[in-house]
């Protein structure tokens, strides 16, 4: 039987829930400020670089030197491509880990239903090597 909470416990719980609510409202704001500030900086330097090429002299000297440098541009493209590949590979690994975790269900079901049949996929939810032959 669950014991009844005391007045102090309820008060403390109330304060914690209130503070958590405030923290949950503030944290995404801070995160979004950083996130969108990054996007604004990229957009600004992109715009300023074009403006500079069109003959306007602005703060864009820094931006144009950075963004029009072929080495930097190539490095960014490689970084994006490499990052994308790593992301894809890790997502795939995660999907297989999840499939492997779900293999527990057949084990537990087999304890209840010993005659349970199986699709016979290999661990990780991939095609059984024997079925490739």
């Amino acid at each position, binding site marked *: 039987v669950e014991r009844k909470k005391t007045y*102090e*416990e309820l008060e*403390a*719980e109330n*304060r*914690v*829930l209130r*503070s*958590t609510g*405030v*923290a*949950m409202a*503030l*944290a*995404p704001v*801070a*995160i979004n400020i*950083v*996130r969108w500030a*990054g*996007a604004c900086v*990229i*957009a600004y*330097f*992109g715009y300023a*670089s*074009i403006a500079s*090429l069109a003959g306007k002299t602005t703060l864009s000297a820094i931006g*144009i030197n*950075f*963004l*029009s*440098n*072929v080495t*930097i*541009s190539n490095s*960014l*493209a490689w*970084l*994006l491509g490499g*990052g*994308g590949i790593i*992301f894809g590979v*890790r*997502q795939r690994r*995660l999907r297989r*880990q*999840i499939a492997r*975790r779900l293999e*527990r269900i057949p084990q537990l079901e087999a304890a209840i239903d010993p005659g349970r049949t199986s699709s016979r996929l290999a661990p990780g939810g991939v095609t059984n090597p024997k079925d490739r032959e």
Partner: protein
Amino acid sequence: MLGSTIFTVAYSVVSLLGLWYLVFWLYRGYSVDAFRQDMFDLRDDLFDAARTGLISFDHPAYGLLRSTINGFIRFGHRFTIGQFLFMMLLIKRKDLETIADFDQEWDESISDLNQNTVHCLENFKARMDRIAIKQLIMGTPEFWVVYPLISLCICLWLLWRIGTRQTASFWSFVRNRFFPEIDNAAYFYGRSKEA
């Protein structure tokens, strides 16, 4: 010449925007999924340990650990360093200890268990904390820019500890200073039906 420069600029901007999307959106979603997966694995291993007779499913230590893991899984999407810092600032440690004192309940719940079981459960708990701190550090790319500064502070702090001959490990300091709050919060939300 001008055309190729414009092309290079456009190429750089597109790559930067792609990286921005990859890091702040795609990676963020992936890190939450990976964190939950690690916690699911831990919870399954704990279940298997109980199934093989290490501990009873009704034992308070099993319930405490499982509820805390559930709290981490449930609120994994909110488990960011920003959230953690705001919670550290806003929530009084005493309040959290009043409603859910994980460490105290843990010590009480393992008191009737044998040495081997306690050792195994402590390993599960340490693994849970390691998964949580990894997510706290790596799960919020928006804060990565400040990590070099934090690393420098940690190095200076460690040098000071060595200089003053304080030999307690950095990990145990972090565990004792910050993790009671994290574990208490996860336990509180893991056992509550609504939040």
